């Protein structure tokens, strides 16, 4: 459409409407200081941001996969402007846009709610966004020409800062274009805090800090670009009398606490430490003998020795195999999965027992070949069959990067494009399969050929590339998966070690330095970057030694801090100024109850006495209401979030009166029965129970209460002991690692 045509049309506009439009342009100009009202409206630079800000092109609305909404499709967050333009101008029987009467355009009628619209009112007729779209339509709804400047950079101001609790901070979003111009796009950008409990942010970029101290980030997005505002929210209390640092973990944690003014709690007592570390490394409670010996020991290094003992024990291997097999989807869907699931679980368990370096462990999974029995990690390829699923799992589990979005469009929060996605897929494009002698199982091998994967959008076949890193050309004979493993295990890999140390940090410190632990991105910064970097370096330097990492974490004073808050740090949720108590996970809790009750849970076809943490797969959940109620995962996801750690009424009821629990308490071979029959003082028996449950002696009042109860007349002795054990099980001290 030519300028003269535009001019002639403008002459026919009603006077009032013209004034309104001019007003809208003036409003728009406030956010586009460089853009002049007389200039043509840019589809890419003006229209698409309006659609994005209004939420028209989010996944649940018109960017929904498979056709958008009601036949109107937009690209997600406007990442494909050309496609959006086509949808707007060439579909919908040309009803979407009427240049002659812009207000009659379906786009505006629906968006403003003048016609029924499932998405509600997205743009009021008085809004600047409405005016901008209207003007673009009026101008003929054209696509940008070559001369229209392109967005080249985006930043938020300020990028970081220290801000007090309860304070506000207005952010400013600035877009820079190829002609050198800069626009203030604060009103058009999208804002999201990584910890909503710490910071609230309006759609105009006004950040309000809550009363929680620590570090918080606000992600600001505009036109496929992302910037981050990082705020440090100090408490400002005096930090003195810090525990002496055991290692670099303490140095970094305490430095952060000092900077934030959060005084840490004291170091926990021996009983708490022994119970905590045994649960965290061995997935079990300490035995009475272990607790007694630990308390009796005068060795200054006894805590370190316990850690070493636990790391040497098969309990460590069992517990961490339990963690990893769920993430590696060792799931039983059919009885014919039994052998492969047992084999894979056992391989994982043996790998931890032998302290196989983590990079080697991952290499053996990624590049597995052969049969499941001959090489158990092949079982991963039984569960994760398609290359896309393979790279998505690998990226999330081993690199902490969520690539799923980039399969269909540019990642909304990250730098990953579809090319990045399919370049990663290419690593798995030469995985060959042959039928094996076992029904449902394939032999896995490298199929000779040049590895490529085709970007479904562009149709371009892509060679393997690893998240932005170029990989030297891979010959047809070489298994690309081995090259991927080489890249992952490289000393400078920015994801691999970071992802693991963060995952393990969360295991021991309850909260990841980055949360969620498998969503590492520039826009989700760690709460203590220096600590994460130090851990990463240590892990790489140790040769990816998992036991050494556990040693470093658990030997630190930071890990050994008491869970009891002081007058200041009760508001701390992320700086590790105290230990954050956590409910025992399903398997550990079941084992702990068996330990205290002196019973065993019978699992089908497994030897009596098999611990719940040593179960090879999810199939036992079906027969154990306890494991289901307490959230044991079904191994369907690589996300640790599949394990439900939240509390529920069902859990409380289960602990209070489930038949399963009653049967354990009343077991004829159980601890209650034994204690009732045993000829020794009641005091000794109560001491035994407290050592078994809490790894500590009973306090005088506890001892008195317990003995008084046991001595109550009219009740059978075994029933009294059952009641006492039941009461101990139902304490928070028992149910939580603290």
């Amino acid at each position: 459409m030519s300028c003269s045509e535009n001019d002639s049309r403008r002459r026919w506009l009603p006077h009032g409407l013209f004034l309104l439009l001019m007003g809208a342009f003036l409003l728009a100009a406030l956010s586009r200081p460089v853009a002049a009202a007389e200039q043509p409206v840019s589809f890419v630079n003006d229209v698409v941001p309006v659609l994005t800000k209004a939420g028209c092109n989010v996944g649940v609305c018109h960017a929904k996969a498979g056709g958008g909404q009601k036949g109107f499709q937009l690209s997600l967050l406007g990442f494909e402007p050309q496609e959006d333009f086509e949808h707007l101008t060439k579909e919908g029987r040309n009803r979407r846009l009427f240049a002659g009467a812009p207000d009659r355009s379906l786009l505006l009628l629906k968006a403003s709610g003048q016609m029924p619209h499932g998405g509600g009112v997205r743009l009021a007729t008085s809004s600047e966004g409405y005016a901008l779209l209207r003007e673009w339509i009026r101008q003929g709804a054209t696509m940008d020409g070559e001369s229209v400047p392109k967005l080249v950079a985006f930043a938020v101001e300020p990028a970081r800062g220290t801000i007090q609790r309860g304070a506000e901070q207005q952010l400013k979003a600035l877009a820079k274009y190829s002609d050198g111009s800069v626009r203030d796009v604060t009103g058009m950008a999208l804002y999201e805090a990584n910890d909503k409990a710490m910071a609230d942010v309006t759609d105009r970029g006004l950040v309000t800090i809550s009363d929680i101290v620590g570090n918080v980030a606000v992600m600001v997005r505009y036109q496929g670009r992302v910037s981050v505002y990082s705020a440090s929210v100090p408490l400002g209390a005096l930090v003195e009398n810090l525990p002496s640092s055991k290692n670099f973990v303490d140095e970094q944690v305490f430095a952060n606490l000092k900077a934030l003014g959060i005084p840490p709690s004291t170091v926990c007592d021996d009983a708490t430490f022994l119970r905590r570390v045994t649960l965290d490394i061995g997935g079990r409670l300490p035995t009475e003998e272990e607790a007694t010996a630990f308390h009796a020991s005068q060795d200054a290094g006894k805590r370190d020795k316990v850690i070493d003992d636990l790391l040497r024990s098969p309990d460590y291997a069992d517990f961490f195999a339990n963690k990893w097999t769920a993430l590696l989807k060792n799931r039983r869907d059919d009885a014919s999965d039994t052998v492969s699931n047992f084999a894979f679980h056992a391989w994982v368990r043996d790998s931890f027992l032998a302290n196989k370096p983590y990079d080697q462990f991952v290499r053996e999974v990624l590049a597995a070949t052969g049969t499941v029995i001959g090489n158990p990690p092949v079982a991963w390829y039984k569960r994760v069959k398609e290359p896309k699923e393979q790279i998505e799992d690998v990226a999330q589990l081993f690199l902490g990067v969520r690539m799923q979005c980039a399969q269909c469009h540019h990642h909304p929060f990250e730098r990953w494009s579809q090319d990045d996605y399919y370049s990663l897929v290419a690593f798995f494009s030469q995985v060959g399969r042959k039928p094996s002698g076992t029904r449902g199982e394939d032999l896995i091998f490298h199929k000779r050929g040049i590895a490529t994967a085709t970007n479904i959008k562009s149709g371009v076949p892509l060679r393997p590339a690893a998240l932005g890193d170029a990989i030297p050309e891979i010959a047809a004979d070489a298994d690309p998966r081995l090259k991927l493993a080489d890249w992952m295990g490289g000393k400078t890999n920015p994801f691999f070690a970071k992802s693991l140390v963060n995952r393990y940090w969360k295991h021991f410190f309850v909260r990841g330095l980055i949360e969620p632990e498998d969503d590492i991105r520039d826009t989700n910064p760690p709460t203590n970057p220096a600590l994460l970097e130090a851990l990463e370096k240590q892990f790489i330097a140790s040769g990816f030694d998992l036991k050494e990492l556990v040693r470093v974490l658990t030997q630190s004073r930071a890990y050994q801090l008491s869970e009891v808050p002081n007058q200041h740090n009760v508001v701390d949720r992320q700086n590790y100024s105290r230990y954050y108590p956590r409910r025992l996970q399903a398997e550990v809790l079941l084992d702990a109850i068996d330990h205290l009750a002196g019973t065993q849970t019978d699992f089908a076809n497994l030897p009596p006495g098999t611990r719940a943490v040593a179960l090879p797969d999810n199939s036992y959940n079906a027969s154990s209401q306890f494991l289901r109620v307490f959230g044991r995962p079904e191994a369907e996801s690589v996300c640790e979030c599949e394990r439900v750690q939240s509390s529920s009424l069902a859990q409380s009821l289960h602990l209070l009166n489930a038949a399963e629990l009653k049967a354990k308490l009343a077991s004829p071979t159980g601890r209650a029965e034994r204690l009732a029959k045993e000829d020794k003082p009641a005091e000794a028996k109560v001491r035994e129970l407290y050592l078994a449950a809490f790894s500590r002696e009973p306090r005088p009042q506890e001892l008195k209460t317990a003995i008084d109860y046991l001595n109550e007349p009219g009740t059978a002795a075994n029933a009294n002991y059952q009641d006492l054990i039941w009461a101990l099980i139902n304490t928070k001290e028992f149910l939580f690692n603290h």
Partner: protein
Amino acid sequence: MTAFVYYSRFRWMLLTALICGTWLSMTSLLFAQSVGLPAPRLLTTIPMGAKVGSQVEVTISGEHIDDADELTFSDRHITTARKLNAAGQPEPNKYVVTIAADCPVGIHEARVMTRLGISSSRAFSVGTLDEALQTKANTTLATAMELKVNSICNATMTQRAVDHYVFEGRKGQRVIVDCATRGIDSKLDAVVIIADAVGRDLVVERRGGTLDFTVPTDGKYVIKVHELTFKGGQAYYYRLAVSEQPAGTPIVRMSSTKPVNSFSWPPQGLKEQADLAESEPNNDRTKAQKISLPCDIAGSFFPAADVDVFEFEAKKGDIWWVEVASERFGLPTDPSILVQHVARTGDTEKLTDVAEFSDIPSPVKVSSNGYAYDGPPYNAGSSDILGKLEIKEDGLYRLQLADLFGGTRNDSKNVYRLVIRKASPDVAIVAWALHMELRNGDRNAVSKPLALRGGATMALEVVAIRRDGFDGDIDLAMEGLPEGVTASGLKISAGQSRGLMLVTANQNAPRAIGSGTFFGRATINGEVVTRPVRLASYAWPIPDSWGEIPSPRLFADIPVSVSGLEFAPITLTPPKEVQSVTAGEKLTIPLLHTRRSEFSGAVLQLRTMGAGFDRAPQFDVQINADQSQAVLDTAALKTPPGDYLIAFYGGAVAKYRHRPDLVVAAEEAHKKAMEELSAIDAEVKKLTEAAKAAATEAKPEADKAVEAATVKHKAATAAVTAAADRLKKATAAAAPTDIVDIVVSEPIAIRVNAPAK
């Protein structure tokens, strides 16, 4: 819900029931019944092996071996005798086995001779270490069994349990723990763990390998053994060896049976040791190992992702045959070869792919491991290599050899042998019991022993791997058969890979056993050569292929036996003389039916086996008729003139009766016991009356006689009860049971004459 809806639903259900019912009735003849008449199977021997130069008591168990009277071994250095009790009577299922001092170490086949004939085999190991036997449960640390270093324990795994052993270790001592399971026919997938004295795991082996353990400190160490999924029972036995070996010496494993596909290795005349060893580093082109052809190289796929690169010069027109063995050694490998022509210009190279070699395909379609049988479960092929390399131009060639399964595995035991030779045409042959395509999960028929009933013909499926372009006929023959048994080979025709061997027992063949020799004969390069045919079988009968993965293996020998006491349910007898037909005409073959059993169903569907006629359409015969006829249309089959040997076969559901002779004997015994009881009854009555009438002084004597007679009466009553019980059991056992029998006719010789011109 309206009445109409109910009615519609009812009609639909009725229709479904009718359809299903019809289908079931059509297939019920062969569906979900056991397949194969009872066959004697030796399933376990305890112990499973012995030391050379020793004598050991062996207890056996199995199926249909209750009446076994002889335990035999494939090696003459092992002799046996029945174990006698204190009264000098043979104890059931017990034998005294003597292993001569010069008996070869390794696996030998153990079998028993029964009324049904020779049983299936069970591997029996002969070694040089001391032997021990697990005599009581050792499933806890407290009950751990003491095991001396340099000894082997024979044990059976308990379900849902872990067996514990304890040995004394010296600091620095190198202890090898080896556990024989699958290689001695056990179903056990063993997990072997060495733990410290309090049972805390130190090292674990789960893939059938050994534990190579250097003792860290003096003291007791625990060995734990369990099944991967904690299965157990009689079939899950093992031999656990704990031995001391000097540091740095290669580990010598316990002997093991051979996988089926190992029949094709080695090529005829190959030296025991290769001429050359691969020389690392030879992993890339700059370090390629120079060789000249022909060559014979030993190497290993080590370390992980190892690629061995060789370079050689070759001339245009040369044809070389490339063979690699690794998987056929029983190793979990998948060798792969790429040959490229190298054209060098200065420092640059132009590589042109010349050939890729991977698997040796199975010559016949292998089972898809489904419920229904759709091919033999024995893979005669291999993931090894056997291929032809044609040189199209003079120059330098580069060959790279890698293990497709070796990307992440660091195991120097994964060795290979690479042979590149000029054509040396030859053949390797293997056979197994023929099974039919049935919608039935029972696979017992594929593992039955060559224990023939009188009047039965058993078919063996024979498969050849042809080497280096050999393409001629392969005739099949068996010798050393017992009296009354004949063997007819349906040859492997030129260019084909499959033949059949029919082993027929005459109806009157006496009970006997022979050690068969099975071979193939071919003319290669103008010379007649004879090659042995190896026999393969499952290690265990498999009644449900859906639930169990078979582990087939090769056998050391081929015994053939005749029962002499049981007979085939039916014999289909064609004329003995050669049947002549002119090419293009139809041939009618009369079949005489000799029935010795009742059958379910009236029709027997027959197919034809044998080159030239195996595409003949299936045809029906009335099973209860005394004779029938087969019509073969040589025009439709396009059978060229020549001599042929064929047979007909099909599945029939026999109403099998187990030992009806025992019913007769039990009836006799019961009748006799009743008569004895009756006689004693009369005597008691008589004596009682006499006692009543006896004078006072004779009374005590008379009462005594009554008392004695009453005791005898009690014994006679008990004898009647026992006899009645035996009769009941024998009658129940002899009740007709539907069993699918694979009926094979006696062989038929056919001459197809050329039509007159």
